């Protein structure tokens, strides 16, 4: 009995209606935080931070590249875990989150790849280098595209959700293995010219804007995930009375 009481919050969290109504109130604040963080981070990073001693001004691309890659990778785990939550507790909302996370993650991975390639040109002299990080991001993009494509193989939403969740879990086991393998493969073949100084040696003046941008990208992720999930809720719950009520009220306001 006691146990049931403790878990009610968890199941309320899984209610699409609760999510839709709560996020309605959260969204303006989240957008405000996102905009201020991104604007401050970008202006700071692009105009005020000192340039890197070796890479010059092109190093400023990391204020886009690193946050996008970090959030894209974290997004894969979020997608896989929400799929697992859906499989275990049969919560509808977590499947909707999983489905929404795939295109956002793919887009962020795309940003990471493109900015990485542009950064590579002045730094390494080539748009594409088979660097461990870039290669892992490319594989991550394929993993995201696979999850997105698998959905169309199934005619029922329910089966498609479960299949995507399984694929997400298989991918989650594999992501660290892939990452480590690519890393090892890279050290095996590394040409001497490709060396890049990592974050620990970064000066605080350069590092602080990066932290602001990473937090900004996370809030951006939260905002887009909420927006995509709200669409998904409307699509799947169109028979629910609260959705009909919502639509009626909306049209009455106009």
């Amino acid at each position, binding site marked *: 009995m006691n146990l049931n009481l403790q878990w009610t919050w968890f199941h309320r969290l899984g209610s699409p209606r609760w999510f839709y109504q709560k996020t309605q109130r959260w969204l303006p604040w989240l957008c405000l935080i996102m905009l201020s963080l991104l604007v401050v981070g*970008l202006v700071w990073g*692009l*105009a*005020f*931070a*000192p*340039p890197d001693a070796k890479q*010059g*001004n*092109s190093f*400023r*691309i990391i204020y*886009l*590249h690193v946050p*996008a890659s970090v959030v894209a990778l974290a997004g894969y785990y979020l997608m896989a875990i929400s799929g697992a939550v859906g499989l275990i507790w049969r919560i509808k909302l977590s499947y909707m989150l999983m489905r929404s996370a795939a295109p*956002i993650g793919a*887009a962020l991975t*795309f*940003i990471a790849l*493109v*900015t990485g390639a*542009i*950064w590579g*040109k*002045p730094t390494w002299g080539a748009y594409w280098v088979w660097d461990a990080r870039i290669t892992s991001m490319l594989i991550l993009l394929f993993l995201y595209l696979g999850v997105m494509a698998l959905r169309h193989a199934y005619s029922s939403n329910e089966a498609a959700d479960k299949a995507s969740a399984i694929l997400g879990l298989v991918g989650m086991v594999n992501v660290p293995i892939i990452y480590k393998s690519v890393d090892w493969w890279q050290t095996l073949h590394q040409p001497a010219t490709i060396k890049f100084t990592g974050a620990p040696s970064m000066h605080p003046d350069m590092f602080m804007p990066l932290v602001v941008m990473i937090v900004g990208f996370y809030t*951006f992720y939260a*905002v*887009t995930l909420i*927006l*995509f999930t*709200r*669409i998904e809720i*409307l*699509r799947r719950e*169109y028979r629910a009375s609260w*959705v*009909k009520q919502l*639509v*009626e009220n*909306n*049209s009455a306001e106009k």
Partner: protein
Amino acid sequence: MYFESIQQLIVMDGHGVYVWSAFSITIVVMLGLIFKPLCQVKQEFKNIQLHVRLQQVNAAAMQQKDSDAPHS
């Protein structure tokens, strides 16, 4: 500001092309991610409204049929 003028900020010692193209691509993709669902909301609302109206019409037709039945 690190740069002395806006001109310098744009050129960035010759690296401006790379920095600003990366910047603009990122912004375009991010704006797309924000606006895609915002556009879809309107479409979804229209679809649901259509669905509700269809249901009402169907229900009315069924009622009409039921009330017609005893007379015939």
